[in-house]
């Protein structure tokens, strides 16, 4: 006989788990444009969203997709889109808009090989830096990176929660393998899931400022049609939302945007570690590479090597504090990534020459194997 818990255990694809996570967070609008390897998210939500009274729309391109997502979010719906590298490039202007206009929304980037059309069906981590720096202007990104089907589900919920809490776009940075692989996952009951919703104003409309400056850096958010009648613009604006050219108001706005991320790093950043207690060597890897690294570390441990895994679940903001803290015990950090070396620059920035940092890069469309990582550990140690 099957118990209630057994029933909840399902074999899901990463992309589907991401979509399930979105539904569980209360996402009620998806706007997107098909692109491999993310399309299953759109297909799944086209079927599921109307069942819960939500809406799916296929737009004419990715620029329009994220525009519709922003429009729906300011009108009160939790909204998202999903894409891959080429579509993500097209979204950059509007990611900046969502950041500037402080609009919560979630963008899933299931990475494939680049540059350009690149390798549509192959795995890569080639957008690691685009996520951080893609849009123009000073910008502080939040990006979460799952390595398993379960993490796809959990981190999508977390992405919605962070975006609602901080009124900012949040990116879920997946990759082709994480998106397409199937694993067993136990979906929690809706009651067990912590869902955060944007803070609503408590003041009457006459006092309301859509971009209020306050000590928490996050302003309560009314939606269109609720009687508040405010202005939203991508032009640099004052707390009321009107374009400004006053230097002190400009500085205040840009500081607010920066501070709401930078003053909350400890809330936003999560790092998963394995065997780090006594490690003097660490492998630093995110996404699917962290899975191979986990295997490699167990191989090393069998040979009595003190190796551990650092897996940033939040890659932006970068886990500076964690690395600074762990640095003293380490003789070597190996950064493994599916590109020509993007995150290694960040690790070196934090390490500042205090420990050896070595890279293991693969960008030929194949995964980094546990053996490759293990060999690298032996070679560098």
């Amino acid at each position: 006989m099957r118990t209630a818990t057994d029933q909840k255990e399902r074999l899901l694809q990463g992309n589907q788990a991401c979509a399930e996570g979105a539904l569980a967070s209360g996402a009620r609008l998806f706007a997107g444009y098909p692109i491999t390897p993310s399309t299953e998210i759109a297909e799944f939500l086209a079927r599921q969203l109307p069942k819960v009274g939500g809406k799916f729309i296929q737009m004419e391109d990715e620029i329009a997709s994220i525009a519709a997502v922003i429009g729906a979010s300011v009108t009160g719906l939790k909204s998202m889109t999903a894409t891959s590298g080429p579509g993500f490039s097209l979204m950059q202007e509007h990611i900046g808009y969502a950041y500037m206009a402080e609009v919560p929304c979630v963008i899933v980037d299931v990475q494939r090989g680049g540059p350009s059309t690149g390798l549509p069906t192959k795995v890569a981590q080639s957008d690691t830096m685009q996520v951080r720096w893609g849009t123009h202007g000073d910008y502080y990104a939040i990006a979460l990176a799952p390595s398993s089907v379960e993490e796809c589900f959990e981190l999508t919920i977390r992405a919605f929660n962070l975006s609602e809490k901080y009124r900012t776009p949040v990116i879920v940075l997946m990759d082709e393998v994480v998106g397409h692989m199937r694993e067993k996952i136990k979906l929690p009951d809706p009651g067990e899931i912590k869902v955060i919703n944007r803070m609503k104003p408590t003041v009457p409309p006459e006092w309301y400022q859509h971009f209020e400056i306050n000590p928490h850096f996050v302003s309560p958010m009314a939606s269109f049609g609720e009687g508040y009648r405010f202005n939203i613009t991508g032009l640099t604006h004052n707390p009321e939302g009107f374009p400004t050219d006053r230097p002190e108001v400009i500085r205040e706005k840009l500081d607010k945007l920066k501070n709401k991320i930078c003053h909350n790093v400890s809330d936003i950043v999560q790092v998963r570690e394995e065997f780090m207690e006594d490690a003097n060597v660490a492998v630093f890897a995110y996404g699917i590479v962290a899975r191979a690294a986990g295997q490699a570390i167990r191989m090393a441990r069998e040979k009595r090597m003190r190796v551990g895994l650092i897996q940033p679940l939040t890659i932006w903001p970068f886990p500076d504090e964690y690395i600074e803290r762990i640095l003293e015990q380490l003789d070597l950090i190996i950064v493994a990534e599916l590109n020509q070396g993007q995150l290694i620059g960040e690790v070196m920035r934090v390490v500042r020459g205090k420990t050896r940092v070595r890279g293991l890069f693969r960008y030929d469309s194949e995964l980094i194997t546990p053996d490759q990582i293990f060999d690298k550990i032996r070679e560098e140690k």
Partner: protein
Amino acid sequence: MELIPKVTHHYLRTKKKFPNVWCAGCGIGIVMGAIIRAIDKLKLSRDEVVMVSGIGCSSRMPVYVDFNTLHTTHGRPLAFATGVKLAKPSLKVIVITGDGDALAIGGNHFIHACRRNIDLTCILVNNQTYGMTGGQFSPSTPFMKIGTTAPYGNRERAFDISKLAIASGAPFVARGTAYHVVQLEKLVEQATLKKGFSLVEVISHCPTLYGRLNKEGDAVEMLKWQRGHAIPISAAGKVPPEKLRDKFLTGVLWDIEFPEYCEEYDKVIAEAQRRD
């Protein structure tokens, strides 16, 4: 402010955002007045109106009016507005855009909004130029007219905007001018009432750049040009074809019925829930 009639005043964010960015004599303010009067006539509450715009002189309009306002990015207001409408179909969503905004950078969104037939009212201020960036030629600048990036005359053909909208599937298409304000007000009213995507193309004028570059005179001269070149569609049959050649038609050019997207999506929801 005494010069602004009471009705208009009621819908302006006077305390917050005046004076405005528009040049003296510009047609955009006239268009704004017509939209406000149409909304007033329809007795829409300010809370239920959302005005969405792109980037350009015309797209600055939402900043000044006391509705829910969304000033977006260059060319994309129809895509933002699609999300707004889908999220809350009870809202009246009016999109303000320019000829550059809607037809160059936003051309793809424009034809797809027409085709998708989501209930948006699009007011396109066609001043035949890129006003905000300094008078470059736009997709609606006539052949051989001067722009700052067409100093020897524009060698491209202009879009016939209304025809483009009709061909793209828009069920309601009208054309008015900044000169014919009473008619414009009515067209905006009809467009707002229309269930489905509606376009009002407004032939307007930019005396500061287009007018000066093309030696078309001041604002008054340009308004007179509009008066002399607009032929009401109802009268078109009576005008000999050779006299129509350099003119344009005004009024409701196209009005058909087609299922509206949000209403169709409600059926999708009902169907999905029935099968579940």
